C-alpha cells in the first residue's frame, strides 16, 4: 500500500481534477457567450464552443489516464508477463496475452527482442502473436480520444473488438502450427537472464506515472489539438453525409478498401484520430472507420520489415492476412449492427 501522505496528496489531486472537469462545460459556455459574444446556434459559435469545451476536457482525461496507466505499467515488466504466459494453453493464454498487451510497456522497436524472449522461453507462438497484436492496437491515448469525442460506447467497442481480433488471430496462428516459419537462428539464440526484478516503492511508481505523462502527453498534444480543431470545423460547417456515398454503410466494399489503404499508412493512435473524426463527422460508417483505424495502427510495413528478422515471409503474410480479415469482420459487424 502507498504511504498515507501519498494517498492524501493523491486524493487532493483527484478532487481538484474532478472540480475542474465538472466545470468545463460552464466555462466554455461563458467564454463563448459572454467573452466572445457568439451564439452556439450559429456555425462559428458552435465551433468555438466545441473547441473550448473539448480541448481541456480531452487533455484532462488524457493526463489522468496516462498517469494511471503509467503506474499500472510499473507492475508489469515484460519479464513478468512472459512468466505469466509461458506454457499456457492456447486459448486461455491468448486471452491473457491480449489483456497483458494493454498493460505491459511496449514499443514497436522492441517487438523483435520481445518475440525472441517469449518464444525461446516456452510461450506458444499463437499466444505470442496475441500479445504482439494487442499491445500496439489497444492504446490508451486512442481510448481517451474515442471516449472524449464519441462517448463510452465507441471506446468500449474499440477495446472489445481489439481484444477479440488479437485473441482470435493468435488462436488461428497457433492452430496452424507454423513454428517452422520462424527463422532458424531464433531457436538457437542464446538468451540471457535479463535485468533483475526491480523493487519499486510507491514514490518511484508515481514518478513513473509522471514520466509517462510528460513523455506521452508531451508528444501527442499537437495531434489532439488538431483532432479537436478538425472536429470543431466539422461541427460548425461541413454538411453531414458528405462521405456517406463512398464510406457509408451501404457501400460494403468500403471496409476491405479501408483496411488495404491502412496497411501502407503508418501512424500512431493519436495521429489517426483527427482523420477518424473527420470521416465520421462527414457521414462515414463507424465500422468502416474503425477498420481503417485498426489497420493503420496494427498493420504497418515498417513492422513487417522489423519482424522479417525473426519470421520467414510466409509467416508474416499469414500474420497480416489473419489480422486483416479479423479487422474486416469487425468492420462488417459494426456496420451491420450499429
Amino acid at each position: 500500500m502507498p504511504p498515507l501522505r501519498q494517498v492524501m496528496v493523491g486524493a487532493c489531486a483527484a478532487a481538484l481534477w474532478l472540480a475542474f472537469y465538472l466545470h468545463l462545460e460552464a466555462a466554455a459556455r461563458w467564454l463563448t457567450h459572454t467573452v466572445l459574444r457568439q451564439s452556439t446556434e450559429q456555425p462559428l459559435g458552435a465551433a468555438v464552443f466545441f473547441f473550448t469545451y473539448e480541448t481541456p476536457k480531452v487533455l484532462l482525461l488524457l493526463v489522468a489516464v496516462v498517469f494511471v496507466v503509467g503506474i499500472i505499467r510499473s507492475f508489469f515488466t515484460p519479464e513478468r508477463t512472459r512468466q505469466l504466459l509461458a506454457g499456457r494453453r492456447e486459448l486461455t493464454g491468448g486471452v491473457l496475452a491480449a489483456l497483458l498487451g494493454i498493460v505491459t510497456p511496449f514499443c514497436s522497436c522492441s517487438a523483435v527482442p520481445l518475440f525472441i524472449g517469449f518464444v525461446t522461453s516456452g510461450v506458444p507462438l499463437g499466444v505470442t502473436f496475441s500479445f504482439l497484436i494487442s499491445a500496439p492496437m489497444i492504446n490508451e491515448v486512442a481510448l481517451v480520444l474515442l471516449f472524449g469525442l464519441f462517448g463510452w460506447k465507441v471506446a468500449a467497442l474499440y477495446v472489445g473488438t481489439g481484444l477479440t481480433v488479437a485473441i482470435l488471430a493468435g488462436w488461428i496462428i497457433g492452430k496452424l502450427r507454423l513454428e517452422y516459419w520462424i527463422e532458424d537462428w531464433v531457436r538457437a539464440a542464446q538468451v540471457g537472464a535479463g535485468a533483475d526484478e526491480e523493487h519499486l516503492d510507491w514514490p518511484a511508481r508515481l514518478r513513473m506515472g509522471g514520466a509517462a505523462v510528460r513523455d506521452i502527453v508531451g508528444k501527442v498534444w499537437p495531434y489532439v489539438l488538431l483532432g479537436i480543431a478538425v472536429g470543431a470545423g466539422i461541427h460548425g460547417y461541413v454538411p453531414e453525409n458528405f462521405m456517406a456515398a463512398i464510406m457509408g454503410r451501404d457501400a460494403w466494399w468500403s471496409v476491405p478498401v479501408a483496411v488495404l489503404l491502412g496497411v501502407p499508412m503508418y501512424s500512431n493512435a493519436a495521429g489517426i484520430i483527427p482523420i477518424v473524426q473527420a470521416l465520421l463527422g462527414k457521414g462515414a460508417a463507424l465500422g468502416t472507420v474503425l477498420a481503417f483505424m485498426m489497420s493503420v495502427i496494427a498493420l504497418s510495413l515498417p513492422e513487417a520489415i522489423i519482424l522479417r528478422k525473426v519470421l520467414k515471409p510466409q509467416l508474416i503474410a499469414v500474420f497480416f492476412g489473419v489480422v486483416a480479415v479479423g479487422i474486416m469482420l469487425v468492420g462488417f459487424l459494426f456496420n451491420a449492427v450499429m
Partner: protein
Amino acid sequence: MKKIQVLGVGCAKCKALAANAEAAARAVGGAQMEKVESLQEIMRFGVMITPALVVDGKVVSAGKVLTVDEISKFLE
C-alpha cells in the same frame, strides 16, 4: 574503469540513453562506452525491451531512458 554498454537497435530512445550514458561517463571521470546494436548480442543479455543499460556485463535497466544522475549512480 567501468564498462558501459547501451543496447538498442537504433530507436530514438536508444540514442537518448546513449547520450545520457556518455554524459554520465564524463561526469564520473571516464568509462569505457560501447553501443550494442546486433540483435543476437542484445538477446544474449536477455533483454526484451530496449533501450537497456549494461554496466560491467550486468543488465541494470531495460526499457527506460535513465537520466545522467541515475546512470552515474551505477558508475560509482
